[in-house]
Protein backbone atom coordinates (compact mmCIF):
# COMPACT_ATOMS: atom_id res chain seq x y z
CA UNK A 1 0.00 0.00 0.00
CA UNK A 2 2.57 2.42 1.08
CA UNK A 3 4.83 1.17 -1.67
CA UNK A 4 2.05 1.21 -4.24
CA UNK A 5 1.05 4.75 -3.47
CA UNK A 6 4.69 5.84 -3.65
CA UNK A 7 4.94 4.15 -7.03
CA UNK A 8 1.78 5.88 -8.24
CA UNK A 9 3.01 9.23 -7.06
CA UNK A 10 6.32 8.59 -8.82
CA UNK A 11 4.64 7.61 -12.06
CA UNK A 12 2.39 10.65 -11.85
CA UNK A 13 5.40 12.88 -11.39
CA UNK A 14 7.09 11.07 -14.25
CA UNK A 15 4.05 11.62 -16.41
CA UNK A 16 4.00 15.29 -15.59
CA UNK A 17 7.70 15.48 -16.19
CA UNK A 18 7.38 13.58 -19.44
CA UNK A 19 4.49 15.73 -20.55
CA UNK A 20 6.56 18.76 -19.71
CA UNK A 21 9.59 17.43 -21.49
CA UNK A 22 7.88 16.04 -24.53
CA UNK A 23 7.65 19.21 -26.54
CA UNK A 24 10.74 20.93 -25.35
CA UNK A 25 12.84 20.08 -28.41
CA UNK A 26 10.05 21.49 -30.60
CA UNK A 27 9.81 24.71 -28.62
CA UNK A 28 13.51 25.35 -28.97
CA UNK A 29 15.18 23.01 -31.43
CA UNK A 30 18.48 24.83 -31.07
CA UNK A 31 19.50 27.24 -28.37
CA UNK A 32 20.26 29.96 -30.97
CA UNK A 33 16.90 29.92 -32.74
CA UNK A 34 15.47 33.41 -32.91
CA UNK A 35 12.15 32.37 -34.46
CA UNK A 36 9.09 32.76 -32.25
CA UNK A 37 7.98 29.64 -30.35
CA UNK A 38 6.02 27.32 -32.63
CA UNK A 39 2.35 26.49 -31.86
CA UNK A 40 1.87 23.63 -29.39
CA UNK A 41 1.45 20.17 -30.88
CA UNK A 42 -2.17 19.01 -31.22
CA UNK A 43 -1.83 16.31 -28.58
CA UNK A 44 -4.44 16.25 -25.81
CA UNK A 45 -3.38 18.32 -22.85
CA UNK A 46 -1.71 16.13 -20.27
CA UNK A 47 -3.21 16.16 -16.85
CA UNK A 48 -0.77 18.52 -15.20
CA UNK A 49 -0.89 21.84 -13.45
CA UNK A 50 0.52 23.54 -16.60
CA UNK A 51 -1.85 23.41 -19.55
CA UNK A 52 -1.14 24.52 -23.14
CA UNK A 53 -1.67 28.20 -22.37
CA UNK A 54 0.65 27.90 -19.42
CA UNK A 55 3.35 26.24 -21.52
CA UNK A 56 2.83 28.84 -24.21
CA UNK A 57 3.47 31.61 -21.81
CA UNK A 58 6.62 29.91 -20.54
CA UNK A 59 7.79 29.51 -24.15
CA UNK A 60 6.95 33.13 -24.86
CA UNK A 61 8.73 34.31 -21.76
CA UNK A 62 11.84 32.38 -22.78
CA UNK A 63 11.63 33.72 -26.34
CA UNK A 64 10.98 37.23 -25.04
CA UNK A 65 13.98 37.07 -22.77
CA UNK A 66 16.10 35.92 -25.66
CA UNK A 67 14.72 38.53 -28.03
CA UNK A 68 15.31 41.19 -25.43
CA UNK A 69 18.89 40.07 -25.02
CA UNK A 70 19.33 40.12 -28.80
CA UNK A 71 17.78 43.55 -28.98
CA UNK A 72 20.09 44.75 -26.21
CA UNK A 73 23.04 43.37 -28.16
CA UNK A 74 21.81 45.00 -31.35
CA UNK A 75 21.43 48.34 -29.60
CA UNK A 76 24.93 48.05 -28.16
CA UNK A 77 26.36 47.17 -31.58
CA UNK A 78 24.62 50.01 -33.41
CA UNK A 79 24.96 52.63 -30.67
CA UNK A 80 26.29 55.93 -32.00
CA UNK A 81 29.56 57.14 -30.52
CA UNK A 82 30.64 60.78 -30.24
CA UNK A 83 33.82 62.81 -30.71
CA UNK A 84 35.35 66.09 -29.60
CA UNK A 85 35.60 69.07 -31.96
CA UNK A 86 38.04 68.48 -34.84
CA UNK A 87 39.16 65.23 -33.20
CA UNK A 88 39.03 61.53 -33.98
CA UNK A 89 40.41 60.48 -30.58
CA UNK A 90 38.45 57.80 -28.68
CA UNK A 91 36.95 59.49 -25.61
CA UNK A 92 36.06 57.61 -22.39
CA UNK A 93 32.39 57.56 -23.31
CA UNK A 94 33.17 56.31 -26.80
CA UNK A 95 35.52 53.65 -25.39
CA UNK A 96 32.73 52.31 -23.12
CA UNK A 97 30.35 52.11 -26.05
CA UNK A 98 32.91 50.44 -28.32
CA UNK A 99 33.80 47.94 -25.60
CA UNK A 100 30.14 46.88 -25.50
CA UNK A 101 30.25 46.15 -29.24
CA UNK A 102 33.24 43.82 -29.04
CA UNK A 103 31.48 40.74 -27.47
CA UNK A 104 28.53 41.09 -29.84
CA UNK A 105 30.87 40.97 -32.81
CA UNK A 106 32.99 38.22 -31.26
CA UNK A 107 30.00 35.93 -30.62
CA UNK A 108 28.30 36.59 -33.95
CA UNK A 109 30.99 35.99 -36.49
CA UNK A 110 28.67 36.31 -39.50
CA UNK A 111 27.69 39.86 -38.60
CA UNK A 112 29.31 42.61 -40.67
CA UNK A 113 29.00 46.31 -39.99
CA UNK A 114 29.50 49.66 -41.66
CA UNK A 115 30.79 52.61 -39.64
CA UNK A 116 29.87 56.05 -41.01
CA UNK A 117 31.86 59.01 -39.69
CA UNK A 118 30.17 62.40 -39.42
CA UNK A 119 31.19 65.92 -38.40
CA UNK A 120 29.43 69.02 -37.18
CA UNK A 121 28.72 71.92 -39.52
CA UNK A 122 31.72 73.96 -38.44
CA UNK A 123 34.95 73.56 -40.32
CA UNK A 124 35.41 73.34 -44.05
CA UNK A 125 32.90 71.17 -45.94
CA UNK A 126 35.76 69.55 -47.84
CA UNK A 127 38.13 68.96 -44.93
CA UNK A 128 35.23 67.58 -42.89
CA UNK A 129 34.86 64.71 -45.37
CA UNK A 130 38.35 63.61 -44.39
CA UNK A 131 37.65 64.16 -40.69
CA UNK A 132 34.57 61.93 -40.91
CA UNK A 133 36.65 59.22 -42.61
CA UNK A 134 39.25 59.51 -39.84
CA UNK A 135 36.56 59.11 -37.14
CA UNK A 136 35.18 55.98 -38.80
CA UNK A 137 38.71 54.61 -39.16
CA UNK A 138 39.46 55.31 -35.47
CA UNK A 139 36.46 53.23 -34.34
CA UNK A 140 37.35 50.44 -36.75
CA UNK A 141 40.93 50.35 -35.50
CA UNK A 142 39.68 50.15 -31.90
CA UNK A 143 37.55 47.12 -32.76
CA UNK A 144 40.17 45.33 -34.88
CA UNK A 145 42.73 45.88 -32.11
CA UNK A 146 40.37 43.82 -29.94
CA UNK A 147 40.32 40.89 -32.30
CA UNK A 148 37.53 41.70 -34.73
CA UNK A 149 38.42 40.76 -38.31
CA UNK A 150 38.99 43.91 -40.40
CA UNK A 151 37.11 42.41 -43.35
CA UNK A 152 33.90 42.56 -41.29
CA UNK A 153 34.02 46.33 -40.92
CA UNK A 154 33.48 48.77 -43.78
CA UNK A 155 34.06 52.47 -43.14
CA UNK A 156 32.66 55.52 -44.91
CA UNK A 157 32.42 59.24 -44.30
CA UNK A 158 29.59 61.69 -44.77
CA UNK A 159 31.49 64.73 -43.50
CA UNK A 160 28.91 67.31 -42.50
CA UNK A 161 26.48 66.24 -45.25
CA UNK A 162 24.09 64.24 -43.02
CA UNK A 163 23.57 66.18 -39.82
CA UNK A 164 20.95 64.93 -37.38
CA UNK A 165 20.16 68.54 -36.55
CA UNK A 166 21.01 71.89 -38.11
CA UNK A 167 21.02 74.35 -35.21
CA UNK A 168 24.18 76.35 -34.81
CA UNK A 169 24.77 75.59 -31.14
CA UNK A 170 26.90 73.20 -29.09
CA UNK A 171 24.06 70.79 -28.28
CA UNK A 172 23.50 70.19 -31.99
CA UNK A 173 27.18 70.24 -32.94
CA UNK A 174 28.02 67.63 -30.29
CA UNK A 175 25.26 65.33 -31.55
CA UNK A 176 26.60 65.57 -35.09
CA UNK A 177 30.25 64.72 -34.27
CA UNK A 178 29.66 60.98 -34.40
CA UNK A 179 30.16 57.50 -35.84
CA UNK A 180 27.01 55.62 -36.79
CA UNK A 181 27.01 51.80 -36.90
CA UNK A 182 24.90 49.76 -39.27
CA UNK A 183 24.63 45.97 -39.63
CA UNK A 184 25.25 45.14 -43.29
CA UNK A 185 25.27 41.31 -43.15
CA UNK A 186 24.35 38.48 -40.80
CA UNK A 187 22.12 38.46 -37.74
CA UNK A 188 22.76 38.60 -34.03
CA UNK A 189 21.79 35.16 -32.71
CA UNK A 190 24.20 34.51 -29.86
CA UNK A 191 23.96 36.67 -26.79
CA UNK A 192 25.96 36.80 -23.61
CA UNK A 193 24.49 34.55 -20.91
CA UNK A 194 25.95 36.63 -18.15
CA UNK A 195 24.38 39.83 -19.36
CA UNK A 196 23.13 42.12 -16.62
Amino acid at each position, binding site marked *: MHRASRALTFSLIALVALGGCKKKPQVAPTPVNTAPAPAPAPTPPPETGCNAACRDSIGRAEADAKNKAIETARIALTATVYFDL*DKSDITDDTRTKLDAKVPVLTQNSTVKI*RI*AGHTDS*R*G*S*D*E*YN*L*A*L*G*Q*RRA*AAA*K*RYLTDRGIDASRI*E*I*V*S*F*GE*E*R*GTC*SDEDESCWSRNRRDEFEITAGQITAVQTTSR
Partner: protein
Amino acid sequence: MTPLLRAALLSVALTFAPFVCVAAQDSLPPGVRLDLRYNPGTKPGVLVLRVAGTNGDSIRAILQRDFDNGDRINVVAAEETGFPDTPTAGKNGNYPVYAKLGALALVQATPTASGLHVAVHDVALQKVAGVRDFVLSGAPNSREWRMSVHMASDELESWITGVRGIAATRVAYVQGVRGSKLFIIDSDGAFPTPVGDDAGVLSPAWHPKGTHIAYSLVGARGCCQIFVYDLASGSARQISAVGGGLNATPTFSPDGGVIVYTHGEESGTDLFATTVFDRGPARRITVGRGSDNTSPTFSPDGRRLAFTSGRLGHPEVYISDADGTNVQWLTSYNTGDQNYRSNPDWSPDGRLIAYQAQQTDGRFQLSTISLRDKSVKQLTNDGSNEDASWAPDSRHLIFSSTRTGTKQLFVIDSESGRWRQLTRNGGVRLPAWSPPLTR
Protein backbone atom coordinates in the same frame (compact mmCIF):
# COMPACT_ATOMS: atom_id res chain seq x y z
CA MET B 1 37.65 114.99 -89.69
CA THR B 2 39.66 112.46 -91.64
CA PRO B 3 39.92 109.72 -88.97
CA LEU B 4 36.23 109.98 -88.22
CA LEU B 5 35.37 109.84 -91.89
CA ARG B 6 37.61 106.83 -92.25
CA ALA B 7 35.95 105.22 -89.29
CA ALA B 8 32.54 106.00 -90.65
CA LEU B 9 33.42 104.57 -94.04
CA LEU B 10 34.93 101.57 -92.37
CA SER B 11 31.89 100.98 -90.27
CA VAL B 12 29.63 101.27 -93.30
CA ALA B 13 31.83 98.81 -95.14
CA LEU B 14 31.81 96.45 -92.21
CA THR B 15 28.09 96.66 -91.85
CA PHE B 16 27.48 95.56 -95.39
CA ALA B 17 30.36 93.18 -95.82
CA PRO B 18 30.66 90.70 -92.99
CA PHE B 19 33.65 89.02 -94.61
CA VAL B 20 35.59 92.23 -94.47
CA CYS B 21 35.08 92.13 -90.70
CA VAL B 22 37.56 89.33 -90.44
CA ALA B 23 40.18 91.47 -92.11
CA ALA B 24 39.30 94.33 -89.79
CA GLN B 25 39.67 92.05 -86.82
CA ASP B 26 43.05 91.00 -88.06
CA SER B 27 44.15 94.58 -88.30
CA LEU B 28 43.07 95.12 -84.70
CA PRO B 29 43.99 91.92 -82.94
CA PRO B 30 42.44 91.04 -79.62
CA GLY B 31 44.27 92.55 -76.71
CA VAL B 32 45.33 95.71 -78.54
CA ARG B 33 45.61 98.74 -76.29
CA LEU B 34 43.94 101.98 -77.15
CA ASP B 35 46.48 103.99 -75.16
CA LEU B 36 43.87 106.11 -73.51
CA ARG B 37 45.60 108.50 -71.14
CA TYR B 38 44.45 108.24 -67.55
CA ASN B 39 46.14 108.19 -64.17
CA PRO B 40 47.26 104.77 -63.05
CA GLY B 41 45.17 103.57 -60.13
CA THR B 42 42.13 105.46 -61.29
CA LYS B 43 39.40 103.93 -63.39
CA PRO B 44 38.88 105.45 -66.83
CA GLY B 45 35.40 106.87 -67.37
CA VAL B 46 33.56 105.11 -70.18
CA LEU B 47 30.21 106.16 -71.53
CA VAL B 48 28.15 103.57 -73.37
CA LEU B 49 26.02 105.42 -75.90
CA ARG B 50 22.41 104.44 -76.39
CA VAL B 51 22.04 101.44 -78.68
CA ALA B 52 19.38 101.50 -81.37
CA GLY B 53 17.10 98.60 -82.21
CA THR B 54 14.67 96.30 -80.41
CA ASN B 55 17.31 94.86 -78.10
CA GLY B 56 19.41 98.00 -77.89
CA ASP B 57 18.49 98.68 -74.26
CA SER B 58 19.38 95.12 -73.27
CA ILE B 59 22.73 95.30 -75.05
CA ARG B 60 23.59 98.62 -73.46
CA ALA B 61 22.55 97.42 -69.99
CA ILE B 62 24.66 94.26 -70.30
CA LEU B 63 27.72 96.21 -71.51
CA GLN B 64 27.36 98.74 -68.69
CA ARG B 65 26.89 96.09 -66.01
CA ASP B 66 29.80 94.02 -67.32
CA PHE B 67 32.11 97.05 -67.28
CA ASP B 68 30.94 97.88 -63.76
CA ASN B 69 31.42 94.29 -62.54
CA GLY B 70 34.96 94.29 -63.90
CA ASP B 71 35.92 97.09 -61.46
CA ARG B 72 38.43 98.54 -63.95
CA ILE B 73 36.09 100.98 -65.64
CA ASN B 74 34.04 103.80 -64.21
CA VAL B 75 30.78 103.56 -66.12
CA VAL B 76 29.67 107.13 -66.72
CA ALA B 77 26.03 107.23 -65.83
CA ALA B 78 24.54 109.68 -68.33
CA GLU B 79 20.95 108.61 -68.55
CA GLU B 80 17.95 109.85 -70.46
CA THR B 81 18.68 113.34 -71.69
CA GLY B 82 21.63 115.65 -71.53
CA PHE B 83 24.05 113.97 -73.87
CA PRO B 84 24.10 113.45 -77.61
CA ASP B 85 23.82 110.01 -79.16
CA THR B 86 26.32 110.67 -81.90
CA PRO B 87 29.75 112.11 -81.23
CA THR B 88 30.90 114.81 -83.63
CA ALA B 89 34.42 116.15 -83.87
CA GLY B 90 35.69 119.58 -84.80
CA LYS B 91 35.38 123.06 -83.42
CA ASN B 92 31.63 122.80 -82.94
CA GLY B 93 31.68 119.09 -82.17
CA ASN B 94 30.23 117.57 -79.06
CA TYR B 95 33.18 115.52 -77.74
CA PRO B 96 33.73 118.16 -74.99
CA VAL B 97 30.24 117.35 -73.68
CA TYR B 98 31.32 113.77 -73.06
CA ALA B 99 34.57 114.96 -71.54
CA LYS B 100 32.62 117.11 -69.09
CA LEU B 101 30.58 114.06 -68.03
CA GLY B 102 33.88 112.37 -67.14
CA ALA B 103 34.16 110.07 -70.14
CA LEU B 104 37.58 109.26 -71.54
CA ALA B 105 36.11 106.81 -74.00
CA LEU B 106 32.77 106.26 -75.70
CA VAL B 107 31.42 102.88 -76.68
CA GLN B 108 29.18 103.24 -79.70
CA ALA B 109 27.39 99.99 -80.54
CA THR B 110 25.23 99.61 -83.63
CA PRO B 111 23.13 96.52 -84.33
CA THR B 112 23.98 94.76 -87.60
CA ALA B 113 22.50 91.81 -89.42
CA SER B 114 24.88 89.40 -87.72
CA GLY B 115 25.27 91.13 -84.39
CA LEU B 116 26.95 94.29 -83.29
CA HIS B 117 29.29 96.86 -84.78
CA VAL B 118 31.21 98.65 -82.06
CA ALA B 119 33.32 101.77 -82.32
CA VAL B 120 35.36 102.97 -79.36
CA HIS B 121 35.98 106.72 -79.39
CA ASP B 122 38.89 108.46 -77.73
CA VAL B 123 37.20 111.54 -76.30
CA ALA B 124 40.41 113.52 -75.80
CA LEU B 125 41.61 112.90 -79.35
CA GLN B 126 38.07 113.30 -80.70
CA LYS B 127 38.31 110.25 -82.90
CA VAL B 128 37.44 106.62 -83.23
CA ALA B 129 40.26 104.63 -81.71
CA GLY B 130 39.11 101.19 -82.84
CA VAL B 131 36.23 99.29 -84.38
CA ARG B 132 35.18 95.71 -84.36
CA ASP B 133 32.19 93.62 -85.37
CA PHE B 134 30.83 91.04 -82.97
CA VAL B 135 28.59 88.16 -83.90
CA LEU B 136 25.62 87.79 -81.58
CA SER B 137 24.29 84.25 -81.65
CA GLY B 138 21.07 82.77 -80.38
CA ALA B 139 17.71 84.37 -79.75
CA PRO B 140 17.87 87.83 -78.17
CA ASN B 141 18.19 87.64 -74.37
CA SER B 142 18.78 83.88 -74.46
CA ARG B 143 21.66 82.37 -72.48
CA GLU B 144 23.71 81.96 -75.67
CA TRP B 145 22.96 85.49 -76.87
CA ARG B 146 23.87 87.07 -73.56
CA MET B 147 27.13 85.12 -73.55
CA SER B 148 28.03 86.60 -76.94
CA VAL B 149 27.32 90.12 -75.61
CA HIS B 150 29.54 89.31 -72.59
CA MET B 151 32.33 88.30 -74.98
CA ALA B 152 32.03 91.69 -76.66
CA SER B 153 32.19 93.36 -73.22
CA ASP B 154 35.38 91.51 -72.33
CA GLU B 155 37.03 92.38 -75.61
CA LEU B 156 36.11 96.05 -75.24
CA GLU B 157 37.39 96.08 -71.69
CA SER B 158 40.64 94.64 -72.97
CA TRP B 159 40.95 97.48 -75.52
CA ILE B 160 40.18 100.15 -72.98
CA THR B 161 42.10 98.95 -69.91
CA GLY B 162 44.56 96.44 -71.33
CA VAL B 163 43.04 93.67 -69.20
CA ARG B 164 40.40 91.30 -70.47
CA GLY B 165 37.08 91.38 -68.63
CA ILE B 166 35.51 88.41 -66.87
CA ALA B 167 31.93 88.76 -68.07
CA ALA B 168 32.06 85.79 -70.48
CA THR B 169 32.46 83.31 -67.65
CA ARG B 170 30.20 81.24 -65.46
CA VAL B 171 30.27 79.89 -61.93
CA ALA B 172 29.58 76.26 -61.03
CA TYR B 173 28.27 75.57 -57.54
CA VAL B 174 26.07 73.16 -55.59
CA GLN B 175 22.70 73.89 -54.09
CA GLY B 176 20.99 71.98 -51.28
CA VAL B 177 22.19 70.41 -48.06
CA ARG B 178 21.25 66.75 -48.60
CA GLY B 179 21.49 65.59 -52.15
CA SER B 180 23.03 68.86 -53.31
CA LYS B 181 22.74 69.44 -57.07
CA LEU B 182 25.16 70.95 -59.54
CA PHE B 183 24.29 74.37 -60.99
CA ILE B 184 25.92 76.83 -63.35
CA ILE B 185 25.16 80.56 -63.27
CA ASP B 186 26.32 83.38 -65.56
CA SER B 187 28.90 85.80 -64.17
CA ASP B 188 26.23 88.51 -63.86
CA GLY B 189 23.78 86.27 -61.98
CA ALA B 190 21.62 85.42 -64.98
CA PHE B 191 20.37 81.90 -65.73
CA PRO B 192 21.06 79.77 -62.65
CA THR B 193 20.75 76.41 -64.41
CA PRO B 194 20.77 72.86 -63.02
CA VAL B 195 23.36 70.61 -64.66
CA GLY B 196 22.89 66.84 -64.87
CA ASP B 197 20.75 64.68 -62.60
CA ASP B 198 23.21 63.69 -59.88
CA ALA B 199 22.21 64.39 -56.28
CA GLY B 200 24.95 64.64 -53.68
CA VAL B 201 27.36 66.68 -55.79
CA LEU B 202 30.26 68.37 -53.99
CA SER B 203 33.33 70.41 -54.96
CA PRO B 204 32.79 71.12 -58.68
CA ALA B 205 35.96 72.04 -60.61
CA TRP B 206 36.21 73.36 -64.19
CA HIS B 207 38.30 71.84 -66.92
CA PRO B 208 40.70 74.59 -68.09
CA LYS B 209 38.94 74.70 -71.46
CA GLY B 210 35.51 75.05 -69.83
CA THR B 211 34.26 71.88 -71.52
CA HIS B 212 33.98 69.56 -68.49
CA ILE B 213 33.28 69.79 -64.78
CA ALA B 214 34.74 67.34 -62.28
CA TYR B 215 33.01 66.79 -58.95
CA SER B 216 32.73 64.32 -56.10
CA LEU B 217 29.44 62.54 -55.60
CA VAL B 218 28.15 61.39 -52.21
CA GLY B 219 26.49 58.00 -52.53
CA ALA B 220 23.86 56.41 -50.28
CA ARG B 221 26.70 54.59 -48.51
CA GLY B 222 28.94 57.59 -48.02
CA CYS B 223 31.36 59.95 -49.68
CA CYS B 224 32.39 59.82 -52.58
CA GLN B 225 33.46 58.95 -56.09
CA ILE B 226 34.93 61.40 -58.63
CA PHE B 227 32.99 62.05 -61.81
CA VAL B 228 33.75 64.12 -64.89
CA TYR B 229 30.71 65.70 -66.51
CA ASP B 230 30.86 66.53 -70.22
CA LEU B 231 28.93 69.78 -70.72
CA ALA B 232 28.46 69.14 -74.44
CA SER B 233 27.07 65.61 -74.22
CA GLY B 234 25.47 65.89 -70.78
CA SER B 235 26.98 62.63 -69.58
CA ALA B 236 29.08 61.94 -66.49
CA ARG B 237 31.87 59.37 -66.20
CA GLN B 238 33.40 58.00 -63.00
CA ILE B 239 37.15 58.42 -62.92
CA SER B 240 38.04 57.30 -59.40
CA ALA B 241 38.65 53.59 -58.98
CA VAL B 242 35.54 51.61 -58.09
CA GLY B 243 35.78 50.35 -54.54
CA GLY B 244 35.98 51.53 -50.99
CA GLY B 245 37.27 54.70 -49.52
CA LEU B 246 36.81 58.40 -49.80
CA ASN B 247 37.41 60.22 -53.12
CA ALA B 248 36.83 63.95 -53.04
CA THR B 249 37.93 67.51 -53.92
CA PRO B 250 39.07 67.05 -57.54
CA THR B 251 41.03 69.66 -59.48
CA PHE B 252 42.26 69.69 -63.08
CA SER B 253 45.88 70.33 -64.03
CA PRO B 254 46.28 73.48 -66.17
CA ASP B 255 46.78 71.36 -69.31
CA GLY B 256 43.51 69.56 -68.55
CA GLY B 257 45.04 66.10 -68.74
CA VAL B 258 45.30 65.20 -65.06
CA ILE B 259 42.93 65.29 -62.11
CA VAL B 260 44.34 65.44 -58.59
CA TYR B 261 41.97 64.48 -55.79
CA THR B 262 42.03 63.25 -52.22
CA HIS B 263 41.64 59.56 -51.52
CA GLY B 264 41.50 57.94 -48.10
CA GLU B 265 40.70 54.63 -46.55
CA GLU B 266 41.88 53.74 -43.08
CA SER B 267 44.91 55.84 -42.36
CA GLY B 268 44.30 59.42 -43.38
CA THR B 269 43.68 60.88 -46.80
CA ASP B 270 46.32 61.65 -49.42
CA LEU B 271 46.35 63.37 -52.79
CA PHE B 272 46.35 61.14 -55.85
CA ALA B 273 46.71 62.00 -59.53
CA THR B 274 44.99 60.24 -62.38
CA THR B 275 44.79 60.93 -66.08
CA VAL B 276 41.41 62.29 -67.07
CA PHE B 277 40.62 60.75 -70.40
CA ASP B 278 42.51 57.46 -70.65
CA ARG B 279 41.74 56.03 -67.21
CA GLY B 280 45.30 55.45 -66.12
CA PRO B 281 46.01 54.15 -62.62
CA ALA B 282 45.94 56.71 -59.82
CA ARG B 283 49.35 57.81 -58.60
CA ARG B 284 49.90 58.86 -55.02
CA ILE B 285 51.28 62.37 -54.49
CA THR B 286 51.34 63.30 -50.82
CA VAL B 287 52.77 61.20 -48.01
CA GLY B 288 50.60 62.36 -45.16
CA ARG B 289 51.48 59.55 -42.72
CA GLY B 290 47.92 59.18 -41.52
CA SER B 291 47.03 62.88 -41.71
CA ASP B 292 44.39 64.41 -43.96
CA ASN B 293 45.36 66.09 -47.22
CA THR B 294 42.56 67.65 -49.25
CA SER B 295 41.46 70.46 -51.58
CA PRO B 296 44.39 70.56 -54.06
CA THR B 297 44.91 73.48 -56.48
CA PHE B 298 47.54 73.76 -59.21
CA SER B 299 49.87 76.67 -59.87
CA PRO B 300 49.14 78.06 -63.35
CA ASP B 301 52.33 76.49 -64.77
CA GLY B 302 51.20 73.10 -63.46
CA ARG B 303 54.48 72.56 -61.62
CA ARG B 304 53.27 73.09 -58.06
CA LEU B 305 50.30 72.25 -55.87
CA ALA B 306 48.73 73.93 -52.86
CA PHE B 307 46.48 71.89 -50.57
CA THR B 308 45.02 71.64 -47.09
CA SER B 309 46.86 69.31 -44.72
CA GLY B 310 46.31 68.36 -41.09
CA ARG B 311 49.82 66.99 -40.65
CA LEU B 312 50.51 69.36 -37.74
CA GLY B 313 47.30 68.33 -36.00
CA HIS B 314 45.22 71.16 -37.47
CA PRO B 315 44.44 72.17 -41.05
CA GLU B 316 46.95 74.47 -42.72
CA VAL B 317 47.75 75.31 -46.34
CA TYR B 318 50.89 73.73 -47.81
CA ILE B 319 52.57 73.90 -51.19
CA SER B 320 54.65 71.23 -52.85
CA ASP B 321 55.96 70.28 -56.25
CA ALA B 322 53.35 68.60 -58.44
CA ASP B 323 54.87 65.20 -57.61
CA GLY B 324 54.46 65.83 -53.89
CA THR B 325 58.09 66.60 -53.07
CA ASN B 326 59.45 69.79 -51.48
CA VAL B 327 56.51 70.35 -49.15
CA GLN B 328 56.41 73.75 -47.50
CA TRP B 329 54.05 75.05 -44.84
CA LEU B 330 52.56 78.21 -46.36
CA THR B 331 50.02 79.69 -43.95
CA SER B 332 50.89 80.61 -40.41
CA TYR B 333 49.28 81.97 -37.31
CA ASN B 334 47.60 85.36 -37.39
CA THR B 335 46.20 87.28 -34.48
CA GLY B 336 42.52 86.53 -33.96
CA ASP B 337 42.22 83.30 -35.84
CA GLN B 338 42.26 79.71 -34.76
CA ASN B 339 44.68 77.16 -36.08
CA TYR B 340 42.41 76.30 -38.97
CA ARG B 341 43.30 77.43 -42.47
CA SER B 342 42.05 75.54 -45.51
CA ASN B 343 40.62 75.45 -49.05
CA PRO B 344 43.40 77.13 -51.04
CA ASP B 345 42.86 78.40 -54.59
CA TRP B 346 45.87 79.46 -56.64
CA SER B 347 45.33 82.65 -58.64
CA PRO B 348 45.57 82.27 -62.44
CA ASP B 349 48.50 84.75 -62.54
CA GLY B 350 50.34 82.61 -59.98
CA ARG B 351 50.96 85.42 -57.50
CA LEU B 352 48.45 84.74 -54.72
CA ILE B 353 46.72 81.90 -52.95
CA ALA B 354 43.29 82.57 -51.49
CA TYR B 355 42.25 80.51 -48.46
CA GLN B 356 39.88 80.58 -45.51
CA ALA B 357 40.87 80.98 -41.85
CA GLN B 358 38.60 80.19 -38.94
CA GLN B 359 38.37 82.99 -36.41
CA THR B 360 37.97 82.65 -32.65
CA ASP B 361 34.23 83.31 -33.10
CA GLY B 362 34.03 80.15 -35.24
CA ARG B 363 33.38 82.00 -38.49
CA PHE B 364 35.61 81.76 -41.54
CA GLN B 365 37.18 84.78 -43.21
CA LEU B 366 38.93 84.84 -46.57
CA SER B 367 42.51 85.98 -47.03
CA THR B 368 45.09 85.97 -49.75
CA ILE B 369 48.74 85.14 -49.18
CA SER B 370 51.48 86.30 -51.53
CA LEU B 371 53.82 83.60 -52.79
CA ARG B 372 56.59 86.16 -53.11
CA ASP B 373 56.74 87.51 -49.54
CA LYS B 374 54.01 85.57 -47.71
CA SER B 375 52.19 88.81 -46.91
CA VAL B 376 48.59 88.16 -45.91
CA LYS B 377 45.59 90.32 -46.81
CA GLN B 378 42.22 89.62 -45.20
CA LEU B 379 39.38 90.19 -47.66
CA THR B 380 36.19 89.67 -45.63
CA ASN B 381 34.69 90.59 -42.26
CA ASP B 382 30.93 90.12 -42.38
CA GLY B 383 29.35 86.71 -41.80
CA SER B 384 31.20 83.47 -42.42
CA ASN B 385 32.96 83.36 -45.79
CA GLU B 386 34.25 80.17 -47.41
CA ASP B 387 35.31 78.33 -50.55
CA ALA B 388 36.98 81.14 -52.50
CA SER B 389 37.62 80.60 -56.23
CA TRP B 390 39.52 83.03 -58.45
CA ALA B 391 38.12 84.63 -61.59
CA PRO B 392 40.33 84.47 -64.70
CA ASP B 393 41.44 88.08 -64.06
CA SER B 394 43.21 87.06 -60.81
CA ARG B 395 41.45 89.95 -59.15
CA HIS B 396 37.89 88.85 -58.40
CA LEU B 397 36.85 85.90 -56.25
CA ILE B 398 33.59 84.00 -55.91
CA PHE B 399 32.81 82.64 -52.44
CA SER B 400 29.95 81.55 -50.21
CA SER B 401 28.90 83.79 -47.35
CA THR B 402 26.29 84.03 -44.62
CA ARG B 403 26.55 87.85 -44.58
CA THR B 404 22.94 88.32 -45.69
CA GLY B 405 21.48 85.30 -43.86
CA THR B 406 21.48 81.90 -45.58
CA LYS B 407 24.55 80.86 -47.53
CA GLN B 408 24.72 82.72 -50.85
CA LEU B 409 27.41 83.30 -53.45
CA PHE B 410 29.16 86.66 -53.62
CA VAL B 411 31.82 88.19 -55.83
CA ILE B 412 34.51 90.35 -54.25
CA ASP B 413 37.09 92.60 -55.91
CA SER B 414 40.25 91.70 -54.00
CA GLU B 415 41.75 95.13 -54.75
CA SER B 416 38.93 97.42 -53.68
CA GLY B 417 36.93 95.14 -51.38
CA ARG B 418 33.79 95.96 -53.36
CA TRP B 419 31.35 93.02 -53.42
CA ARG B 420 28.10 91.97 -55.04
CA GLN B 421 25.63 89.16 -54.45
CA LEU B 422 25.44 86.62 -57.27
CA THR B 423 22.79 84.09 -56.15
CA ARG B 424 19.36 84.61 -54.59
CA ASN B 425 18.55 81.03 -53.62
CA GLY B 426 19.73 79.90 -50.19
CA GLY B 427 21.86 76.89 -49.39
CA VAL B 428 24.38 77.37 -52.18
CA ARG B 429 28.07 76.65 -51.66
CA LEU B 430 31.35 75.34 -53.10
CA PRO B 431 31.55 77.75 -56.07
CA ALA B 432 34.11 77.40 -58.85
CA TRP B 433 34.76 80.20 -61.35
CA SER B 434 35.08 79.03 -64.95
CA PRO B 435 37.85 79.92 -67.38
CA PRO B 436 36.86 82.37 -70.16
CA LEU B 437 34.05 80.77 -72.15
CA THR B 438 32.97 81.16 -75.76
CA ARG B 439 29.48 79.63 -75.67
